[in-house]
């Protein structure tokens, strides 16, 4: 069939062609929505039922505990502010782990990178003269956090690219080194006596959200959430709309093929882990520039590791990561709200169940969906 014939055919029957395409498209969209929504839904239900059992096991009423959990998180402005505050850090560590996973690398060093970013933001804030305008001080603090986290991320990247050292080992070991170094820095040089924190920063503080709306009064939520959301947007654009992002994903999918296609795999690994570290480091501004305005030892303990769960549940997709961060933040704040009734260990266990259910439900629900389609 010549081109001419084809054109003629299309012109003869234009409506059918486009209609078919619309149908195919809409079914595709529907399937994708189902695939995106159903697994978390099933996992959530499984977790809720396991949660019921755990709550009953400690002798409390599931309905009352869940209600209290909702009231303490989305039910009042203060609780919601706390959820937003926790979301902010988790977005960063979740994005950090996601970038690594996209490039086929498992960064478990977000814990140390986050702390390094926080320390850098504090150092910038302490070095600037009092009264430096926020227009200058905030970007400098943010850059400091990015640079410090990126530097910590660069090391395992370079070790992997040049000497083949596995990043799981190097990133986790680097956590200890970085945290010990920061601990020394605080206690030997920067500490306010009888505390575990540095003096307050001179400049670069981000406003609390309570400045905009008084309902948030007392909550730690602050302007850094906007910066982190921008980071998620930019990362999404980078990963899916730029050449660098394409190379990164290509290396993650099939390094050998990527290499054959002319992509420098080693350089991509370094770039991915540096970017990953920088994103984790950015999370440090939430506490340091936004909440307490100083660096405190262990200010976000666990947020780095929870970032792994956020990335897995968010399926390494920036939007998914934001939603997963919101979810885990709700769980964490909700756990605090019900802590007087149920022990913290129970909430930790529930968090584990959520992660397991999420991880298991994705392939399982997909299998069931595929079966259903096969039957049709």
């Amino acid at each position, binding site marked *: 069939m010549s081109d001419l014939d084809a054109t003629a055919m299309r012109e003869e029957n234009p409506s059918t062609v486009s209609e078919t395409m619309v149908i195919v498209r809409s079914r595709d969209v529907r399937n994708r929505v189902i695939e995106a929504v*159903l697994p978390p*839904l*099933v996992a959530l*239900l*499984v977790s*809720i*039922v396991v949660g*019921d*059992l755990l*709550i*009953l096991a400690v002798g*409390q*009423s*599931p*309905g*009352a*505990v869940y209600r*209290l959990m909702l009231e*303490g998180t989305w039910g009042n402005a*203060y609780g919601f502010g*706390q959820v937003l*505050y*926790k979301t902010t850090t988790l977005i960063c560590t979740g994005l950090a782990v996601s970038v690594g996973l996209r490039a086929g690398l498992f960064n478990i060093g977000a814990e140390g990178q986050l702390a390094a970013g926080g320390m850098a933001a504090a150092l910038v804030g302490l070095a600037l003269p009092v009264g430096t305008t926020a227009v200058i001080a905030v970007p400098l603090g943010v850059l400091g956090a990015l640079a410090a986290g990126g530097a910590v991320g660069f090391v395992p990247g370079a070790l992997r690219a040049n000497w083949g050292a596995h990043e799981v080992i190097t990133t986790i070991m680097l956590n200890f080194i970085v945290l*010990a170094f920061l*601990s*020394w820095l605080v*206690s*030997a040089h920067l500490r306010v*006596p*009888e*505390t*575990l924190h540095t003096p307050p920063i001179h400049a670069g503080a981000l406003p609390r959200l309570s400045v905009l709306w008084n309902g948030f009064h*007392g909550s*730690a939520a602050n302007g850094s959430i906007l910066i982190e959301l921008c980071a998620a947007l930019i990362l999404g654009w980078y990963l899916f709309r730029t050449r660098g992002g394409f190379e990164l994903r290509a290396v993650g999918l099939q390094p050998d093929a990527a290499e054959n296609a002319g992509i420098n795999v080693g350089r991509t690994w370094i770039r991915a882990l540096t970017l990953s570290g920088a994103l984790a480091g950015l999370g440090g501004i939430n*506490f340091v520039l936004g*909440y*307490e305005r100083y660096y*405190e*030892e*262990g*200010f*976000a*303990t*666990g*947020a780095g590791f929870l970032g792994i769960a956020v990335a897995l549940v968010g399926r390494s997709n920036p939007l998914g990561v934001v939603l997963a961060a919101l979810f885990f933040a709700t769980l*964490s*704040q909700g*756990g*605090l*709200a019900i*802590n*007087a*009734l149920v*022990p*913290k260990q129970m909430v930790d266990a529930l968090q584990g169940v959520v992660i397991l259910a999420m991880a298991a439900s994705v392939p399982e*629900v997909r299998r*069931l*969906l595929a*079966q*259903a389609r096969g039957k049709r």
Partner: protein
Amino acid sequence: MRSLLLVIGALLLAHIALLLAHPAPAAIAATTGGLDVGIVFDVGGRGDKSFNDGAYRGGERAEQALGARVHFIEPGEGSDREAGLRLLAAEHMQLVMGVGFIFTDDLTALAKEYPDTRFAGVDYALALDSAGKVIPPPPNLAALKFREEQGSFLVGALAALVGKSKKLGFVGGMDIPLIHKFEAGYRAGVMYVCPDCTVIAQYAGVTPEAFRNPGRGKELALSQYQSGVNVIFHASGSTGLGVFEAARQMDRLAIGVDADQYAEAPGHVLTSMVKGVDAVVLDQIRRARDGSFHGGVQEYGLAEHGVGYIYDEHNRALIPDSVHARVEEIRAGIIAGRIVVPAVR
């Protein structure tokens, strides 16, 4: 698709069934007329066999002895400390407590924001202003301190009486004024019963890491034992585990700190200088009930059972009756004010 909907339906049914299984309402809101107390532990604090567990015991005792309802909160991360205190303050608890010096800033800020709520900080760290004067805590905040030097004085006297050596040892954690208080009391206690004795005092380091370094603790203890020391008092957190290890290895004696550490090296723990966190917590809850609660710095020493030493069936064999009687006599002397214990080296 159908099987998936079945799964979802089954889960929903299970959830509803479980909801009905225990419909009793639960609330943490303070009951009117009751004695509701909130206690926030440090991050990862519960299970430390020391401060936080002591506070928990104090809360439990208050529930039994005073009929209080005590609500405990365990924070998951740094910002949860403030969030936990706020949660409890917003529920109109009669008393809100934070366990550990790390709560100092949060408690101070919240006490100002909730002037009608009573707050108390265990081991509250007093801040100094630019002139070096102590900044007093807000009037509705009780800053609870321990007279560690008094308890250390007693174990120092005990060590010198039991030690059979003119040399006594001390291993401190981080080289800071707080730990110097232990050393000062210990030294004074040794000198009180044995003026020609000497105390070898060493510190594990100058960073908080010095409280978590059993290897260094063992190293220091071994060298002290080898130089002729028979008893070492440690005030060094988990670094002290190394001291006990050395005591076991050299078959000498060590003295524990904060909580009864007998179990760390049975037969080699002469006694422990304990902080009565439970007694302090119970006392504050009682004050909240009786209306005798007041803000400001409150120090708990031997008289208030804020500090003490262990003498029970585990270590009775190590301490002759005459020595015990002498130490008790000294305790009475300190409580009566006849013996003044220095708090600085």
